[in-house]
């Protein structure tokens, strides 16, 4: 991709919107390069969550009183914001969940039990996060179904020929990350969906790493399910959303049972609520949903195209700079990369790199990044991962590079 300068986006001034970044760590300014694990929250998100507790706090869809009306309106407004953000056609297609993990578990449960039988197959890829592997393994174990794994090449890109071969007559679902949390690979989701649909197979997309960085449009992608986490897109923790095509959500059985997901209950027969409420049993994370709505507003106001261009330039620069640093080896060279660069420092274990960088004020992640099968494929126990958010700038890359010089100094490499 050609780096493009984003004239409208100023990361340094955006940085001031994130109070966490105002502090010093080990006496140094904080260089936060761990947004792929959890992004930071800007003031408007923090304030929206607080406002719920101060002005609106009550239960939703229940009370007749003023507060409940306010809370319900704020919660449902947030749903519409997320719907627009993901490009969904209808707010009924947005189910609030705890995060991507719960979204995938919901589909594994509801879709799995309705549509899978012994001998059927689910196709995932070698790139997946554990949250897009283990729910399918649990399902396959229960039903006697099979998990098939589409391999990647050494660069970290999906092997298209293998994927084409794997999607067969027994395939019931393809589940795939939009962006790899470990390598930054952007998968060609629209093409995957076209292929899978041509064989009558629906597609679930783990969008946790894509939603904050790419211009996601679920209708353009034509995927059947799309899962996101609030805390990876500048929202609160413990909230996320599942997009599901209305016809799927209508057809599938509920996930959890409880209050709010029913129209009427008797010991003889319970009638489930309409979508999306059918999938939202119990009192949800109301403050979280409102906070997620505020995060979506923040991203829209910052300018999603501008943010995407800024981050794309930044991650390409980081990959270029790290790749040309002596003693540093990049892990993976995906054709299209978003928000993540993983690397190794020759002769120094990633954890030791992480400890030294932490003391230099640089926060990033080391380890297997909840993608052990991918690391087994790459023949690595662990890597160092720098991941970027809209508040990062060239200054952060420079601090990372200075920190790596310090690593080499400490370890004499």
């Amino acid at each position: 991709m050609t780096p493009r300068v984003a004239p409208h986006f100023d990361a340094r001034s955006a940085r001031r919107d994130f109070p966490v970044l105002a502090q010093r760590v080990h006496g140094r300014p904080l260089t936060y390069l761990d947004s792929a694990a959890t992004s930071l929250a800007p003031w408007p998100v923090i304030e929206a969550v607080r406002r719920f507790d101060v002005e609106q706090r009550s239960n939703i869809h229940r009370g007749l009183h003023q507060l409940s009306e306010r809370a319900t309106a704020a919660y449902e407004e947030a749903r519409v914001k997320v719907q627009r953000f993901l490009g969904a056609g209808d707010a009924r297609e947005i189910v609030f969940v705890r995060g991507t993990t719960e979204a995938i578990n919901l589909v594994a449960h509801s879709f799995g039990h309705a549509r899978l039988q012994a001998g059927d197959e689910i196709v995932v890829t070698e790139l997946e996060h554990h949250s897009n592997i283990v729910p399918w393994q649990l399902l396959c174990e229960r039903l006697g179904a099979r998990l098939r794994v589409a391999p990647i090449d050494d660069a970290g890109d999906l092997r298209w020929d293998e994927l084409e071969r794997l999607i067969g007559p027994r395939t019931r679902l393809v589940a795939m990350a939009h962006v790899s949390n470990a390598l930054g690979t952007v998968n060609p989701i629209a093409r995957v969906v076209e292929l899978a649909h041509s064989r009558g197979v629906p597609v679930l997309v783990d969008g946790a790493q894509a939603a904050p960085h790419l211009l996601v449009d679920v209708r353009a992608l034509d995927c059947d399910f799309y899962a996101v986490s609030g805390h990876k897109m500048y929202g609160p923790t413990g909230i996320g959303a599942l997009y599901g095509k209305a016809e799927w959500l209508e057809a599938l059985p509920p996930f959890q049972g409880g209050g709010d997901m029913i129209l009427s209950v008797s010991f003889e027969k319970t009638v489930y609520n309409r979508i999306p409420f059918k999938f939202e049993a119990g009192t949800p994370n109301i403050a979280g949903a409102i906070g997620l709505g505020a995060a979506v507003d923040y991203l829209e106001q910052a300018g999603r195209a501008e943010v995407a261009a800024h981050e794309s330039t930044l991650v390409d620069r980081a990959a270029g700079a790290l790749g040309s640093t002596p003693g540093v080896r990049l892990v993976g060279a995906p054709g299209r990369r978003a928000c993540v660069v993983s690397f190794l420092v020759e002769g120094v274990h990633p954890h030791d790199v992480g400890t030294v960088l932490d003391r230099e004020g640089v926060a990033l992640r080391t380890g297997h990044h909840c993608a052990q099968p991918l690391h087994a494929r790459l023949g690595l126990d662990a890597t160092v991962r720098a991941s970027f958010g809209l508040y990062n700038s060239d200054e952060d890359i420079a601090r990372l590079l200075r920190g790596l010089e310090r690593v080499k100094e400490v370890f004499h490499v």
Partner: protein
Amino acid sequence: MSELRDLYQELVLDHGQRPRNFRRPARWSRHAEGLNPLCGDRIIVFVDLDAERIVDLGFEGSGCAICKASASLMTLHLKGHTRAEADRQFARFRRMVTGDGPPAESSAGLGKLAVFAGVREFPVRVKCATLAWHTLEAALAGREEVVSTE
């Protein structure tokens, strides 16, 4: 920064890069596998136990400098000792790296293992320093299941 220097002393770097007894002993009667699931460090400790005495011990696996250096120095330190002594040394080592007790006192009697006193300033690295010890403890106790630091 002096805390980093205290953590990564030359002795630690040396044993991290060239661990001693980094092999399966010619004879061994006990072994156990230890895993740090959060970071993926994994080592296997092998012990040649003659009655109560550790005749020989070694380890295999992969991990960070702290993990490997700790395993390496542990094997050197415990060879020829009894199980009971190994238990006492582990308790002392653990007190030292967790900072549970005054520094001067806690490293007493640990010999070269005192080099890990700096770990106390890095709480998230305590698990790296103690993985080999937990694994040895399991091997001596004859426990077969994988030891986890979580």
